């Protein structure tokens, strides 16, 4: 992903470069997703932590409080009733934060997209980092997505939240 020009501040970058390296390493090796599953995908999300897949090998470790979580896995359908809650939870998470849209429902509304009550993709509410197709995606696919986020962190790439904030700043929208 191209780094947004608004964010790159050459001066501060030089100052924090060595620290930034350490930080990227830490973020690339520790990722605490929030236990928030709405639907079918939540079962596969639980499976990811189970003995067969054991995400803890990579330092992925589920936390219950949004304040302490780094990453929100939208595991399931988002409807009009839960949408404000999803947004609230996202806002409660502290930066840096990442969002994984797991499964067709979170990506686009999936099989329920025609319905009168289903949000067509969680990216309409919050910025999404990784999309995971599947209905539900295999646990391996979700693990792959989590590892992708961590790899991107190691490489120091910006999260969707940061890009979103930068775009808003560039547009002069105060948040």
């Amino acid at each position, binding site marked *: 992903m191209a780094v947004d020009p608004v964010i790159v501040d050459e001066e501060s970058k030089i100052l924090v470069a060595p620290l930034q390296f350490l930080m990227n390493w*830490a*973020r690339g*090796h520790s990722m605490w997703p929030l236990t928030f599953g709405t639907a079918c995908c939540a079962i596969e999300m639980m499976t990811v932590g189970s003995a067969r897949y054991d995400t803890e*090998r*990579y*330092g992925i470790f589920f936390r219950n*409080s949004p304040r302490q979580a780094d990453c929100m896995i939208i595991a399931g359908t988002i409807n009009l009733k839960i949408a404000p809650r999803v947004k609230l939870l996202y806002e409660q998470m*502290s930066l840096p934060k990442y969002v994984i849209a797991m499964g067709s429902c979170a990506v686009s509304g999936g099989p329920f997209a025609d319905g009168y009550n289903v949000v067509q993709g969680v990216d309409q509410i919050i910025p999404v980092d990784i999309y995971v197709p599947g209905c539900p995606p295999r646990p391996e696919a979700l693990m792959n997505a989590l590892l992708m986020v961590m790899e991107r962190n190691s490489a120091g790439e910006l999260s969707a939240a940061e890009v979103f904030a930068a775009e808003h700043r560039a547009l002069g929208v105060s948040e």
Partner: protein
Amino acid sequence: MTTLRILLGILVLVVFALINTVVVMWCERKWAGHMQSRLGPMRTGWHGLMQPFADALKMLGKETFVPDAADKILFAIAPVLAYTPAIFVYCATPWVANFAGYSLDVGIFMVFAIAALFPVSIVIAGWSSRNKYSLLGAFRAVAQQISYEVPMILSVLGVIMLASSMRLSTIVESQAHVWNLVTQPFAFLLFFIGMLAELNRTPFDLAEAESELVGGYMTEYSGMQFAMFFLTEYANMFTWSLFAAMLFLGGWNGPGPALLGFVYLLIKTYAVVFMVIWVRWALPRLRVDQLMAFSWKVLIPAAILNAFLTALGILANVWVLIALQLAMVAGFVWLISLIGVRAGSAVRGDAPEVSS
């Protein structure tokens, strides 16, 4: 010069404590993994040894979030207040023979006094967060920690009687031939149970109770403030295991040169750490009223009885002492089993009956 020595001492102790905290964290995740047929951390350093560092560093870099409704000053103080006693306790801890920051003749008394500060930070954290889950967690934690300190202190009475001293190094040296675990098994059992409660570990993890209170008193904490609580938990775990090793497992006593004593002490400490972790992953959690009832109705009377019978045993001889202790252990096991069987009021079968 003295100031420098003190500063150096503090630095060494803090670093030592931090390293051990991190190692305990690693042990927890790794051992828990293996107990559950998993592997635990594998990819960060050798078998995930660097995992806690990565976690801590990441939390350091996270945004520290203070809720709008929170009491900002108290909210900021609480994590610091929690972490301080966890380190402070080491100043009176003897490591090998008389190698101690300050060898206090009421060392054990001071340990408990400092440990009693921890609930204060919890109640501040719970209160200032302005979150109902935090508040409930804080209430639970305070009630629990105060209730369980009593049987814990009472259980140590026997040890103090045997050593005729409250100085930690004297207590350890009194175990040069026989560990207190042999002469005081029941006291060790009580101490261990009290320790689990002090550490907020399963089956007494009501203050955090993830499935009930989300995160208990630390629900609203994020970033480094949360990391402080997290570290405190594991620092306390190391501290209490260290004291359990000193009070009951003979501390640094062992064959070989005196310097090896430090290694013995660490090995014994980690043995206790293992037990704490082991219990955590095998047992469910108590309910809040059962927790209080267990302390006040079972543990405290048992601890008083233990002190009394230990005094009697000391008056008679060591065999009587051991016999009395074993009888108490047996009685305790029987009592717990009885509570389990009688749980629920109705007289009833256990397995479901089958109809076809």
